[in-house]
């Protein structure tokens, strides 16, 4: 098993486009790391550099402490699962899975054992004689994963492996990949644009945007303490509500004034914003941190009217608005709501986050 280290990794494409910019990531042994970000953020390019499919423009890549920059993919001891599976169409499933072992001249018996072992784990034993053409999307996905695991590589790379599957299968494969990771105890690097996949699978998540790392952390770290506005908006579904508010000081108390309503900030929260008095900041609050109040509160009350109701069963998403701001709120399905009705909410003051308007960095 292996550690992977990316030091100031850069990729500049022919046209001068800087796809990856000074990326530093340390991936520990047996860790499941997810690279996540919108399309064009450089996550796939980073993965391809680790695989050796893309030349590294600048910086260093170490696998198990060995510099890998100029080592071809075949000698890096990695395996990769591609977005469109990339199964060899002229080979059977067995041949596909054993290809890497056969060209490495493993003994026949060993190959057979390993393929059957992997096929058993993935529940594809009865498919071994079939061609990829005769498989469904989910089965192809399993074969692609199987081809990776028979090699017992140092590092597994996944390039959006679930994006071609339908929603139901995607959820199923997600848990299967997670349990596979637990079972194999291998180092895995996983690329996705889907933050739900990132949150559910990753030990560690790396959020990328425009080739720059935005934040690295565990799923809950990212969720609870986003470093900047981008991470706050990207992680979490429905996304965090972010509105502009003016910081004021009234009677020794710090107040965030949103126009339609005011939030009085207590103790430490207020202290953080002292230097922003008289300035605008971005106030962020997660949909579940706006608590529904059957009757309006005296302090910190946000009065809204309901615009859209999305009953999901286990919870209800409400799209509400004050006169100037729109929110999405997540409430338990305990009340009946009607579009157009008034609804009052109280923000959970401990969960509110503030971001600088200019730098969009979190105010800590």
């Amino acid at each position, binding site marked *: 098993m292996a550690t992977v280290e990316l030091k100031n990794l850069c990729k500049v494409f022919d046209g001068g486009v800087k796809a990856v910019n000074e990326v530093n990531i340390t991936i520990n042994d047996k860790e499941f790391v997810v690279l996540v970000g919108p399309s064009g953020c450089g996550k796939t390019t980073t993965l391809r550099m680790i*695989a*050796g*499919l893309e030349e590294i423009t600048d910086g260093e890549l170490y696998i198990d402490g060995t510099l890998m920059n100029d080592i*071809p*993919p*075949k000698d890096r001891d*990695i*395996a*990769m699962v*591609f*977005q*469109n599976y*990339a199964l*060899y*169409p*002229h080979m059977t499933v067995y041949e596909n899975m054993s*290809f*890497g072992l056969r*060209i*490495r001249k493993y003994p026949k018996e060993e190959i057979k054992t390993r393929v059957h072992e992997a096929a058993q784990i993935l529940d594809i034993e009865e498919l071994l004689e079939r061609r990829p053409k005769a498989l469904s999307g989910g089965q192809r996905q399993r074969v692609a994963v199987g*081809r990776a695991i028979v*090699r017992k590589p140092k590092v597994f790379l996944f390039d959006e492996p679930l994006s071609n599957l339908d929603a139901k299968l995607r959820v199923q494969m997600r848990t299967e990949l997670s349990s596979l990771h637990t079972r194999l105890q291998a180092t895995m690097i996983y690329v996705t644009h889907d933050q739900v996949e990132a949150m559910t699978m990753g030990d560690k998540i790396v959020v990328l945007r425009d080739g720059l790392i935005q934040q690295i952390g565990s799923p809950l770290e990212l969720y609870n303490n986003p470093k900047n506005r981008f991470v706050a908006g990207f992680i979490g579904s429905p996304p965090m509500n972010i509105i502009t508010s003016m910081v004021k000081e009234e009677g020794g108390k710090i107040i965030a004034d949103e126009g339609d309503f005011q939030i009085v900030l207590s103790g430490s929260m207020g202290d953080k914003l002292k230097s922003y008095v008289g300035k605008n900041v971005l106030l962020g609050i997660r949909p579940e941190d706006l608590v529904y109040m059957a009757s309006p509160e005296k302090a910190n009350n946000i009065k809204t009217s309901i615009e859209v109701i999305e009953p999901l069963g286990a919870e209800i998403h409400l799209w509400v608005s004050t006169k100037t701001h729109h929110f999405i709120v997540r409430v338990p399905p305990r009340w009946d709501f009607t579009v157009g009705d008034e609804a009052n909410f109280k923000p959970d003051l401990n969960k509110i986050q503030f971001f600088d308007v200019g730098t969009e960095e979190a105010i800590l």
Partner: protein
Amino acid sequence: MEIAGILFTLAMALIVPVVFLSYLFVSEKAAGGRRRGTQTARSLPVFWLIPAAVVLGFFLIYPMIDTIVLSFMNADSTRFAGGENYAHLFSDRAFLIALRNNLLWIVFFTLVTVTLGLILAVLTDRVRYEAVAKAVLFLPASISLVAASVIWKFMYAFRPAGESQIGLVNAALSVVPGFQPQAWLFDVPFNNAALMVVGVWIWTGFALVIFSASLKGISKDLVEAARIDGAREITVFFRIVLPLMSKTVTVVVTYFVITVLKIFDIVYVMTNGNLDTEVLANRMYKEMFNFRNFGRASVIAVMLLVAVVPVVVMNMRKFARGKAGK
């Protein structure tokens, strides 16, 4: 006289489409008017096939049968000669050499052209100036065979040692110390190879373009997956790329085999079949137009036909299987 000719042409240009269209119209009425349902569906294709079948029968099937008949007749087709022509040809040195040469062409020309085409397709795929490289390599394919042969006659031109060489090949090689100018087209049996080089020069670009298109159809991911699986470039080519191109390779090989069975122009222009370079088509031409022996010429034509049949059948089988597998 001239006016009459133009009028006739115009009349034909009008009448032929009208006849065809009215045939289609009438056949559709005839088939659809009387019965409805499955009977119509079954008989209609037959009606539509008839015109094509008539044209094919008249211009292809009939001449073919006639050629077979002629091959059993004497030189001026006045008397039945039995197997005489066949017996003669198989004891005729000129014919046997032509037969051998055709086999040499089939094996070596096809092998070299297909291999070179494949190598060039893979190489051009990896360079930035791919389009230019491919255009240049394809250029010979756009020249007529006669023109190409004339060009290469100059390339192979020979002057005795000591004189200045006007042929590019000898001139270029004279740089090598100790090299003696060669009469490339006179040197039996290597003159056959010299002729094949011309063919290779002409058709490699064609093979390259077809292979290149097929190569582009292979997903890049497959190649990358193989590289990650541990394959070297050469392994990737032989285990992944080539198998995926096998259908294209078969088509190109078939095309070349058929082309080479009919090869004529290059030999006719460059050596006229002298010095053991004759091929079947060349021999047939000589029997027919130089020696006026219709019988023997027809035998060669029949031989060529027989040689082509297995190739065509193989190809048709392959395509039928491809369809069934879909």
